[in-house]
């Protein structure tokens, strides 16, 4: 009897934070907005309930068979309604507000999925999505599996890094030869921390372009970028040829790490792979 009470109380305690999130177990025509949200729905095995995706949802490849309702911050109300959704699951920042208002008017719930750029953020996202979809058991299972994967790679990365945390500069893009880099609390910052390293930028948030002198002054040990997609991306040669980058330890050791953007910045179920790749590139492959 006493055991039962404890179990009930524990269950109630864990259920509490989830009550804030509405559950829509009957939703069978879901428009998924945001790459991580879409990947989680696939990992939960609930993809048969999807009817549309947004431009940022590009994984798994099967998702391309779904109609694309546009960029998450510029959703068109009629475009979204045209796929007849009974639920729109989104990442925070989706909109605009006018579209949200009209969807609400049409009786289509517009549910944002919270979550930051850390292991906890990824697990929160999984829990939230599974709660909204009405499959909390599957969600708990997935969160446990992903949590374990992340814990393993993070521990490995932390151990390999030791005390000498490498200082990594995340370069989002190089418009006009200037480096647009990730500051604190960006996705780039999050993945660098998870790989046991330190963001070379510690003085600003968001993304900023750096002056050449600032790059030399920062002297990052490595430069992290998304893997090139198509011909228009900055090539590794371009970045190494940058006069200021060439003077940094990263430039001299040609330490430019390129990882697929959806692994690196998605903060979805595949984040552990991104952390693993980054850690291997930073500390050398295998056991070495």
């Amino acid at each position, binding site marked *: 009897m006493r055991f039962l009470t404890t179990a009930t109380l524990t269950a109630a305690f864990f259920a509490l934070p989830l009550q804030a999130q509405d559950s829509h177990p009957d939703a069978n025509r879901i428009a998924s907005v945001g790459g991580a949200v879409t990947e989680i729905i696939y990992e939960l095995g609930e993809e048969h309930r999807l009817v549309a995706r947004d431009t940022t949802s590009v994984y798994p490849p099967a998702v391309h068979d779904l109609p694309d309702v546009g960029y998450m*911050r*510029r959703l068109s109300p*009629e475009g979204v309604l045209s*796929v007849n959704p009974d639920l729109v699951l989104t990442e925070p920042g989706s909109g605009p507000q*006018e579209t949200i208002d*009209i969807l609400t008017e049409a009786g289509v719930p517009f549910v944002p999925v919270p979550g930051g750029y850390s292991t906890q953020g990824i697990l929160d996202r999984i829990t939230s999505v599974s709660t909204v979809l009405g499959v909390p058991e599957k969600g708990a299972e997935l969160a446990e599996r992903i949590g374990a994967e992340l814990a393993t790679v993070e521990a490995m990365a932390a151990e390999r890094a030791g005390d000498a945390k490498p200082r990594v500069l995340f370069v989002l893009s190089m418009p006009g030869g200037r480096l647009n880099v990730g500051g604190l609390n960006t996705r780039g910052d999050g993945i660098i921390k998870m790989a046991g390293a330190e963001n070379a930028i510690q003085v600003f948030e968001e993304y900023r372009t750096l002056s050449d002198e600032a790059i030399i002054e920062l002297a990052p040990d490595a430069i992290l970028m998304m893997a090139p997609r198509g011909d228009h991306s900055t090539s590794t040669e371009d970045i190494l040829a940058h006069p200021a980058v060439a003077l940094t330890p990263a430039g001299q050791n040609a330490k430019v790490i390129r990882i697929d953007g959806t692994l690196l910045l998605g903060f979805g179920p595949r984040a552990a792979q991104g952390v693993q790749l980054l850690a291997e590139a930073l500390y050398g492959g295998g056991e070495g």
Partner: protein
Amino acid sequence: MSMLTDASEAVASPIPPIRDRSHSARQMILILTGLLVVTSYFSLTTGAAGTSLLDALSALIHGEEISLRDKVVLWDIRLPRLAMGILVGASLAVCGALMQGLFRNPLADPGLVGVNAGAGLAAVSAIVLVGHLPLAIREATGYFLVPLAAFLGGWGTTLLLYRVATRRGQTSVATMLLAGIALGALSGAVGGILIYQANDDQLRDLTFWGMGSLAGATWLKVLVTAPVILLAISVAPLLGKGLNGLSLGEAAARHIGINVQRVKRLSILSVAAATGAAVAATGGIGFIGIVVPHLLRLAIGPDHRYLLPNAALLGAILLLISDMISRVIIAPAELPIGIVTAVLGSPVFLWILLRRRGVLDM
């Protein structure tokens, strides 16, 4: 100023000046009204949500029940969008025609009186600095903050320019033009400082604001915008004769008994109000104000009495067509309408230039 004078002759003097085109111009009003009705019908029945809305329309007429989704698509999305398209299209084209008449320059557009620069700066400020505003203001304005700021910014800038350019009751359009360039550069610079401070989300909002869209049209926005635009462009018919007179030059216009100052004041103020409201409601939409008056001058000649009402109709038609393209071409996503008007408008404008090149080279 020689460029201004040269160009003014090209537009202003009817070439050849013999044929009376008022009959065809009046016919054009009827034709365009008919076209506007047809375009409006198509605008209500095309869109990502499919053709079942035709049935919904007939159900509505027969008093039958329609689904909530169809009702929302028709009543909350397409109708306000249609209304906003007509208002903004008419306003952009009429303002373009007014400015070209006033400045006697075929390249003039409402941007010349500083309304776009002011509206743009105010919109950037609102997007970037929203976090620093008192909570009361933010709560009271909601997502009207940016449009409201844009309208006030555009209107305020034009008033300022008007004051700068007016001495002893006479407004110099040349001074206004040059001061507008200076003020535009200043707004650009201040805007640049703000953009540099902006975070990523704000930057993305700014980019899309600049491209314009009718997608955000709601009944509330239409109801707020409509009175301003309607009032402003209803002044236009009073200006037809005055602008025709002005095309002979200011001195000549005065000699034939036109109150030049009144024409200037009314044109500038109504352009500032109508363009300010249009830009505020839909963001930056280019080329309608340039292309529409030029097309019409080819068809019906430069008489402002007919040019202005026809411009309102053709502007509305072209914007509705652009809007239809913007919402079906990559459905269910949507292309910003400013891209569509620029893609359609630029070749047409070039074609007009090539046709009239002999005239402009004079």
